[in-house]
């Protein structure tokens, strides 16, 4: 009798203690995170979906049926699939090789290489597209030189151009993911394989590569999603190949449709379904190939000599050169005069001085990017921390939700946000706020994941040690947890900054009269043939995106890992 009473009292005490601990900042966070996703992700997507069913056609599913029955639409879906899969494979191949070469061999200038890779991540793909036209188009400088030299080199405009540009655009994702996967492979695995009689090559394919599958597939997923949903690149270099994202975008802005967005919404839903499908496939694949190992002794760099070394260096720098060639082109042409929309070899600063939209666009870009980066980094750190450390019932829900934006293409984001927040009851169409919101939600998963996976690796013992030494959990967070994750926060912020600055697909749908960003103006300059202005603005965009990278390098020293 007595004992049961005491047990009751204890149990009650326990519950009370949990309740008391339970209602604080941290227990509110999971809830807030779910609300955040519900409002900024689920709501607009659902609204887009309902809109897609609310067509003026009598048959609500008509648009979907049309998509699969009408060759004009269906072909673009097939085209997009073919192109994206090719691009994904090419980026995978080149990205893995590049990453392995740089990680493994004595290639000089590794920091510069990593910086170059991040840089290519920064520039909007259609800048690359039009640079490629300048270089290898029918009238391209380099193509003409090659032709003059007797090499019959076809114009790059069209499918080859799209493949090149989209592959280069995807390269950094694969590169970065592979690099980080490589860092968890232990040297002893390679030694073990060689010791068992395998050659180095066989060892790479049979023992090392299989362990990278999770990381590589994540990178390739990102390539696929961007390639499948980019309409800026086909718009500039596409030529006669209809691709699905262009269809989505055009259906949104179609003159013939009037104010009926059901087609745009339906197409977006299809795009979303394809990307989510890719995401689910990749997740289950990565899960099957997750080995939960971490390297005690990471793979040691290998000294190559002679011809092998030269070949590897040539391959690496060849790829890097191709990747930065568009950037160089942009910078050079920004100082060239255009006449009749063609560059001449006359120096001018007109590109920088004649465009009235340059300063406002720069201001907008800096403002939105900064706000989005700061909020995204903060929220990402907090939510990532909550997922990793505060075991809550909402944890798996948040985890799942934070996955979705990976698969939501920029166009779809734009359309969903425009439908969700553009008009009543929010009236945010064209405002800076709606842009920042979209940027925030697109990048949030990246921030969350980088923090939660780092914390998972670090383990809890340092934090427990702090609590054990009498420092309450709230202070422990600031004094132990935060300092330990600062490097990850910083490099995550850097990546957010770089990718938000170049955002185009969602921005194109959401921007308004006073909120045009640099990428929008570059695109409009390219479309109107104001190439010197486009190049000048592109150059400024490149410089601006580089600033934080440079600052970080100064602050954190020349640790090349900061760029990953």
């Amino acid at each position, binding site marked *: 009798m007595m004992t049961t009473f005491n047990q009751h009292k204890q149990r009650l005490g326990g519950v009370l203690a949990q309740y008391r601990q339970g209602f604080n900042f941290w227990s509110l966070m999971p809830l807030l995170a779910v609300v955040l996703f519900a409002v900024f992700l689920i709501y607009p997507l659902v609204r887009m979906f309902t809109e897609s069913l609310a067509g003026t056609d009598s048959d609500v599913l008509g648009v979907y049926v049309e998509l699969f029955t009408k060759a004009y639409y269906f072909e673009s879906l097939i085209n997009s699939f073919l192109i994206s899969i090719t691009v994904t494979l090419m980026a995978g191949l080149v990205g893995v090789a590049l990453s392995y070469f740089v990680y493994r061999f004595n290639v000089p200038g590794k920091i510069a290489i990593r910086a170059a890779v991040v840089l290519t991540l920064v520039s909007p793909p259609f800048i690359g597209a039009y640079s490629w036209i300048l270089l290898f188009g029918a009238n391209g400088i380099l193509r003409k030189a090659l032709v003059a030299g007797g090499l019959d080199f076809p114009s790059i405009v069209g499918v080859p151009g799209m493949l090149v540009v989209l592959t280069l655009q995807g390269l950094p994702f694969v590169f970065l993911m592979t690099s980080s996967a490589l860092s968890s492979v232990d040297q002893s695995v390679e030694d073990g394989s060689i010791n068992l009689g395998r050659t180095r090559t066989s060892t790479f394919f049979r023992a090392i590569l299989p362990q990278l599958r999770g990381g590589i597939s994540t990178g390739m997923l990102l390539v696929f999603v961007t390639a499948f949903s980019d309409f800026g690149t086909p718009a500039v270099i*596409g030529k006669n190949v209809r691709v699905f994202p262009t269809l989505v975008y055009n259906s949104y*802005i179609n003159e013939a449709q009037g104010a009926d*967005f059901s087609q745009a919404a339906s197409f977006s839903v299809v795009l979303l379904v394809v990307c989510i499908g890719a995401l689910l496939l990749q997740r289950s694949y990565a899960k099957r190939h997750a080995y939960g190992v971490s390297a005690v002794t990471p793979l040691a760099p290998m000294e190559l000599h002679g011809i092998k070394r030269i070949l590897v260096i040539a391959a690496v720098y060849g790829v890097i050169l191709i990747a930065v060639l568009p950037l160089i082109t942009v910078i050079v042409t920004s100082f060239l005069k255009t006449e009749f929309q063609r560059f001449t070899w006359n120096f001018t600063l007109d590109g920088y001085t004649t465009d009235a939209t340059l300063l406002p666009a720069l201001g907008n870009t800096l403002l939105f990017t900064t706000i989005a980066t700061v909020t995204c980094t903060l929220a990402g750190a907090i939510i990532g921390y909550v997922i990793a450390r505060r075991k809550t019932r909402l944890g798996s829900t948040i985890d799942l939700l934070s996955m979705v934006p990976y698969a939501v293409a920029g166009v779809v984001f734009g359309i969903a946000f425009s439908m969700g927040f553009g008009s009543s009851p929010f009236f945010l169409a064209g405002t800076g706020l709606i842009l920042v919101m979209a940027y925030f939600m697109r990048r949030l998963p990246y921030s969350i994941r980088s923090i939660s996976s780092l914390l998972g690796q670090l383990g809890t013992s340092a934090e427990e040690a702090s609590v054990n030494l009498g420092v309450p959990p709230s202070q422990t967070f600031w004094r132990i947890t935060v300092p330990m994750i600062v490097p990850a926060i910083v490099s995550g912020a850097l990546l957010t900054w770089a990718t938000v600055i170049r955002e185009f697909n969602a921005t194109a749908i959401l921007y308004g009269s006073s909120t045009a960003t640099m990428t929008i103006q570059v695109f409009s300059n390219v479309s109107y043939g104001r190439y010197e202005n486009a190049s000048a603005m592109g150059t400024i965009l490149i410089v601006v995106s580089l600033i934080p990278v440079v600052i970080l390098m100064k602050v954190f020293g020349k640790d090349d890992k900061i760029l990953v």
Partner: protein
Amino acid sequence: GEPASGETLVIYSTESTMPEFAERFQSETGIELQVVSVSSGQSDARVAAEKDNPQTDVAISGSSPADSNPELYRAYEGSIDVSNVDERWIKGEYAIPTILNPVIFGYNTEVLDGRAAPSSWEELGDEQWRGEVSIADPTQSGSAFNALAAVYAAGGWPLVEKFAQNVVIAQSSLGPIQAISNGEAAIGIGAEASVYQVADGEDIVAGYPTDGIVVNVGMFYLVENSSNPESADAFMNWMLSSDTQTWMQGEHKGMRSTTTDSETPDTLQDLSTLDLIEVPADVLADKAAFLDEWTTILTSVN
């Protein structure tokens, strides 16, 4: 209230030269004009999406958006003086005809490489131009639509079919012009003004089809419930003034005036010498069906 200097007016514009108008307008009236460069389709879509909270005062469109959504726009009757506008261009009470742009083509003589340049839509159906005629997507671009309508008028579906075999679809209205400019295409179809942006008279030359030219009328619309209706009115009246129209024609080769009281420079072929036609009535009657047929033909031939 009165239009006030210091106000900010917004325009969704399809005209690449609009920033220069804006500069001039501000220096003359003190009213700032913010230009958002969009295509006709984008302009329509935005105005529709923003109907509860309009973000622009004026919109340019080539696709008669007020026909289907009159509630989005404001009739100009009473606030804009269109007395100097040539009657031919006036279509309804919403669209303000401000700029004329005949849809023609340009060609790159280097790419022609000795071949005779085509002089009519009919000739564009000739097999020798397979893959060398660049045109924007008629389902997206007003000028491409008008060009297609002219092709149809010149030779009906048989000609459209031959034409479809030759075209390369560019991804924007200015794409075809850029394609001839950088040598990607031999022939590019577009508005006269855009052709003259790249036509230097040597390599790139403007060509006027002899079997019917449809004129793109740059229609300006006043947006319903916009924030600065008075300034919008002031702007439109300024646009249609003979001063502005004279300056426009002098400054931008190929931009033609809708008005009768402005001076036309003689560097261009006079409008009256061109074989102007209307978009055929059966096309106008069901635009969607016409475009459907076009996309079907296009997908079937390549």
